[in-house]
């Protein structure tokens, strides 16, 4: 299935559209989505370790504006947001 990941902060530099579409297996957890995103980055930006570090240090939130943890299972097509370390206003 496909999910969308909306990009914020430093993660906006990953792509021009501010949103990515990833193909994932059914019942993938956030940990798996993070790995999937790291694989995508390695392909799209092979020499940029900074981007990988952003993903490793980011949280994700769902459509209800709730932070979802590594064991949160994504079982339907939906939009998640990547929340990089915050700059704090």
């Amino acid at each position, binding site marked *: 299935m496909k999910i969308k990941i909306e990009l*914020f*902060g*430093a993660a*906006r*530099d990953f792509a021009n559209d501010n949103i990515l579409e990833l193909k994932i297996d059914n019942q993938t957890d956030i940990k798996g989505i993070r790995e999937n995103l790291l694989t995508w980055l390695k392909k799209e930006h092979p020499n940029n370790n900074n981007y990988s570090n952003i993903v490793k*240090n*980011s*949280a994700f*939130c769902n459509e209800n*504006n709730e*932070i979802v*943890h*590594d064991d949160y299972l994504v079982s339907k097509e939906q939009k998640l*947001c990547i*929340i*990089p*370390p*915050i*700059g*704090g*206003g």
Partner: protein
Amino acid sequence: MFHCDVIDVSKNKITLEKAQAFIESHKCGASLFFIGTVRDNNNDKTVTGITYDSHDGMVKKSFEEIFDEANKTLQLQHPVAFVEHAKGYVPLGGISVVIAVACKHRAQVYEFSRYIIEEIKKRTPIWKKEHYNETDSEWLKGNPIQK
């Protein structure tokens, strides 16, 4: 009473007049304004402006949680607060955030205002990209939200 918003500064302005109109109350004997502005230097670089990015839904949720917590923790009397944060490019000297608060007595407004800004800094999903005279713009490193 509480008002919060994220203001796209390419379309609207954050104004003190709006904040003052909101917090005016005959029940309150004290009010205080905190104004955050873009300064000209950070980490020995000359800053010309900051682009603020925001997850608007989470930011508003965070502001509401902070207001509720402040109210409970500080046991405020007749608390009123107005919080607006900029989104988009803010030039040097421009307003990034306004926090206007009012309470029954003066001691509480200092604590109340301080509580709100310190908690925003810790946990509200807002990101800053600084623009410099001499070098490329860069996103400031922040603190990870608990995963």
